[in-house]
């Protein structure tokens, strides 16, 4: 009873300090003073907004059924902001539609990796013992194996398609999340509030997801943000090598690849998609770095 009273007291004081709303407001307030978060978030919002609005924006069709070859390799102008490509398609429109592909693939890949990583890492760290031994060994194996090579191997074997790219990135990327989650779970499971809820008869699964997981959220959010940047890099590299997104679907990596033979004649084909790619990756990296400083100052400089 005393324990429960103690818990209630803490809950009460947390609620009096404003509770969940206040905590969120606090984080938002600190984030808005962090220039990395602000710049990163601005870049991301612009790209995401353009990608979401692509169907309603007054831009050319990125994959026209009829090609106007007399329009090919036109330099940037007021009609075609980023010029036209070797088939006469509007590069600006293809870059924006390409953002939809890149962002979708990257987000889904990170969500899947996150789910695999959280479940396995949490289970390993929380239960310990033999379970931990087996799962931690697997995590280490995949962690040591270079993500890009793994993704390349799977994408090459499964054949190029959007779903396979997402699968390939998830398979190669989950170990990072699992490692992080396991470490957090290991340290959190010894805390008093976990012991308290166990004493109150809570089931393992409830303790894991209701008590341990929420206390590991900050580093997961940071990693997820950086993970989107990594996933975008992997997706565009795979597409560049011809095993990722397939034409005619617009994809930044493949557009860059197609632009190389036209570097002299029409450098805009290969430069503009790369610029937007860089801005997007930079945005997510900045957001991740900034959030790390805001959410957990102890993690400063941990990422290599």
């Amino acid at each position, binding site marked *: 009873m005393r324990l429960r009273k103690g818990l209630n007291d803490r809950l009460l004081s947390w609620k009096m300090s404003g509770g969940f709303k206040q905590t969120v407001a606090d984080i938002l307030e600190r984030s808005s003073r962090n220039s990395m978060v602000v710049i990163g978030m601005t870049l991301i919002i612009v790209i995401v907004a353009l990608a979401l609005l692509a169907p309603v924006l007054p831009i050319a069709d990125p994959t026209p059924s009829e090609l106007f070859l007399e329009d090919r390799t036109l330099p940037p102008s007021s009609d075609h902001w980023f010029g036209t490509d070797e088939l006469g398609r509007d590069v600006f429109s293809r870059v924006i539609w390409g953002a939809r592909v890149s962002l979708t693939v990257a987000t889904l890949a990170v969500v899947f990796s996150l789910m695999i990583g959280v479940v396995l890492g949490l289970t390993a760290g929380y239960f310990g013992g033999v379970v931990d031994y087996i799962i931690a*060994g697997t995590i*280490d*194996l*995949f962690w*040591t*194996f*270079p*993500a*890009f*090579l*793994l993704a*390349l*191997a*799977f994408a*090459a*074997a*499964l*054949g190029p398609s959007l779903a396979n790219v997402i699968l390939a990135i998830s398979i190669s990327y989950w170990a990072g999340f699992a490692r992080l989650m396991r470490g957090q779970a290991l340290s959190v499971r010894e805390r008093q509030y976990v012991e308290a809820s166990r004493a109150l008869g809570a089931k393992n699964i409830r303790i894991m997801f209701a008590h341990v997981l929420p206390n590991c959220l900050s580093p997961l959010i940071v990693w997820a943000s950086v993970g989107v*940047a990594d996933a975008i*890099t992997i997706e*565009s*590299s795979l597409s*560049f*090598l*011809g*095993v990722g997104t397939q034409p005619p679907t617009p994809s930044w*990596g493949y557009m*860059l*690849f197609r*632009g*190389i033979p036209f*570097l*002299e004649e029409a*450098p805009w084909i*290969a*430069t503009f998609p*790369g*610029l937007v*790619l*860089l801005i997007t*990756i*930079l945005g997510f*990296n*900045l957001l991740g770095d900034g959030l790390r400083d805001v959410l957990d100052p102890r993690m400063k*400089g941990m990422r*290599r």
Partner: protein
Amino acid sequence: MADLVSYVIRKILLAIPVILLATLIVFLMLYLTPGDPIVAIMPPHATQADLQELRAKYGFDQPFIVQYGKFLMRLLHGDMGQSVARSTLNVDVSTLLMQRLPKTLELMAIGLTISYSVGIPLGVFSALRQNSWKDRSVMVFTLIAYAMPSFWLGILLMLLFSVYLGWLQAEGTVGGFSSIILPALTLGLGNAALTTRMMRSSMLEVTRQDYITQLRSRGLPEREVILKHALKNAILPVITVIGLDIGWFVAGAVVVETVFSWSGVGMLITTSISNHDFPAVQGCILVLAIFVVLGNLIADIMYAFVDPRVRLG
């Protein structure tokens, strides 16, 4: 010293499962590939019995684990199969790899040299001027260089030096130094950014320590304090991760070699994928994965050598 030896042996033993995983993944690649290879090579009017006979001949009718075991045995004898691409039909994959490997190693060596000779001085420079505008510009540079996709950087460098200035060759491996400099620079720059950041934070940490203050208070010239005493300690964590950089370089090499048509292992992967030459893809991925594992091993060992506390863990 005994603890170091046992640590090294433990690390080597731990590297074996990772290499096994690499062979398993490479073997699975064939399993995951859609389509039955036997049906593909036989004429359409072949009977079921014919197909069955051929399956038995190539061992495709055996259980997975037996097939994998045979695959491992062949690998142990250095046999990675034969290429099935039209231009290199029936050439041993190991021969192809031996031809290409020196090119990739050359590229990686020069890339590493560039990244360290840019990253270390820049990191020291930045740390000694902490929070000045110079430090901040270096940090902005590292952020951009780190986020820069290597293929786009390669394209930009090509555009600048080959198309506009006409100084350097854009493609191929014939031109000696002038043709390696652009791919190596492309490969090295991202890692240079990482090295700069690490060097900076390591230098900041060291210069705050008591022995540096003590040296300064004894009136040693600042130049000597930094170059002779601080740098020696600050550089250690940076160069011990040289092995981990190999992982970065292996992934980068595949892309960079493709951009510049540099005929190394990375380029071989790309051409083999488009030629559906799976034995060659398998061989390349396996070799590159072993490289990364060895790199990690070197990093672990160097770290333990430098920092004795690690050996006990």
